[in-house]
């Protein structure tokens, strides 16, 4: 469903990505790996519509698209960022619905926020995720795992076709990591495509069908996880092996 064709990204003199090709099929989980500065986050932000690539093109269902954060969402692409991109001063429900608030019409005309509906729907989403997060709690007072649940619930809201997960297991407990991995498997079963950025080799090999490795802005490997090994990927990341 998603194809990147010779995508490059230049920040001034710095080339963050160099001619990267990538194909993702529906229901596929791809693990994107690479060292710090290899271009993982840049790639994710291009797919999420936050950056426009300086060269190459992004194609969705065989059609070239120019993505903005809003249009990416309309195409069914949702991103969960490493810093979780939450507003600490707002409630869990407000964060889940940020930018997509539900409203009802007062007396048939005046649009007002429908707090009850947003609370109810977020509670359902947290339930599905098996999280104890309460919709009215302020994010400021939440644990790392609860924040993760809020961020994932937000992304789940629109039943996306493609979910971009940036280090979803970086800041949470071991038990919660298992929950997040379970969630990723659940997404795949429902035909949702997942691009998983992770430093944790074990996570990628536990849930991903494919592993894609970036090094210094170039794609150096793209193969089924069953054909690779954590050792090979480590070598690719560090540059001990040039490409595979």
């Amino acid at each position, binding site marked *: 469903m998603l194809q990147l064709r010779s995508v490059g990204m230049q920040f001034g003199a710095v080339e963050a990505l160099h001619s990267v090709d990538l194909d993702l099929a529906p229901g596929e989980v791809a693990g994107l790996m690479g060292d710090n500065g290899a271009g993982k986050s840049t790639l994710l932000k291009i797919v*999420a519509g*936050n950056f426009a690539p300086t060269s190459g093109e992004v194609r969705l269902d065989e059609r070239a698209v120019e993505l903005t*954060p*809003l249009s990416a*969402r309309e195409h069914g692409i949702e*991103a969960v*960022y490493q*810093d*979780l*991109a*939450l*507003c*600490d*001063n*707002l409630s869990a429900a*407000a964060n889940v619905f*940020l*930018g*997509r*608030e539900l*409203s009802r019409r*007062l007396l048939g005309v005046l*649009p*007002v*926020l429908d707090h009850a509906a947003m609370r109810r729907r977020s509670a359902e989403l947290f339930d599905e995720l098996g999280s104890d997060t309460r919709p009215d709690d302020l994010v400021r007072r939440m644990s790392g795992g609860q924040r993760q649940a809020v961020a994932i619930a*937000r992304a789940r809201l629109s039943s996306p076709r493609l979910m971009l997960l940036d280090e979803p297991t970086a800041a949470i407990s071991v038990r919660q990591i298992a929950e997040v991995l379970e969630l990723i498997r659940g997404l795949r079963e429902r035909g949702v495509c997942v691009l998983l950025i992770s430093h944790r080799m074990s996570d990628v090999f536990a849930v991903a069908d494919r592993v894609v490795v970036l090094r210094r802005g170039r794609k150096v490997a793209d193969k089924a996880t069953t054909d690779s090994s954590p050792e090979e990927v480590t070598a690719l990341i560090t540059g001990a092996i040039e490409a595979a």
Partner: protein
Amino acid sequence: MLTVAALAGVMSLVSAPFASADNIFNISRNFAFIGLVALGQTAVIATGGIDLSVGSVMGLSGIVTGLVLGSGQPLVLAAAAGLGCAFLCGLTNGALVGYLRLSPFVVTLGMLSVARSLALVVSNNKMIHDFGPDERVVLALGGGRFLGLANPVWLLLVAALCAAAWFRYSRLARHVLAVGGNENSTRLAGVPVARVKLTVYVLSSLLAGVSAILMIGWLGAVTNALGQGYELRVIASAVIGGANLMGGEGGAFGAVAGAALIELIRNSLLLLGVDPYWQGAFVGGSIIVAMLVERVRRGSRTAG
């Protein structure tokens, strides 16, 4: 709110004239002008910004309204001209802060100077007290009373109720708080951050314009010094009312309570016979105290 009630209680005990109907009427009218502008300021501060230009925008709007009235035009046209100037000031502030991402402090400090200077230019530094054929309407609007309360107080009450509903129920206000909480994530969520900022600066300026039009009706004349130094009292009202200068917090009733408290402090000092030269120290000091109280409150919260 509690502080306002407590101070009012104490003052009515120690000073006989304090609780007189006339004094209460005066206090409420005086803070209505400030409170109105503080509502807009609260929205600006909630985005993590600040609008230092409100006092000067009041001056410019007041002068322009007065001039157009004086040239024989009806109030509707004059008010439209005054509010139009306020709108343009707000639009400029908002565009520079929102779209060009300049620092709100610097942009609105510049506008503070620009708008005040324009008021001088168009008025040629003259006082305007001839409000033309609609003079009586203007005077009644800003200086009159209805059911025992000054008209500006009624307007403040209505505006505060609207603002409170706005903060709770509008999508825009939700985005205002979100921008103040985490601008980047709000942008990532697809919220048009620049437009949100533009809107709050325009609102802030427009409320300053409305306040100025009422004020010239109350004063019966307008000079280009109208609203001079008001930015401090407006910002103080918003901050004392719980608006967080870091953004992300603020409410309508807080702004009104803050304005009431400042006016109460000023009034109390006068009645207690304190030299008026001390007023600045007390008003300024109360902002700092409000910040300290907020810090202590927040400190104990995050420690837990």
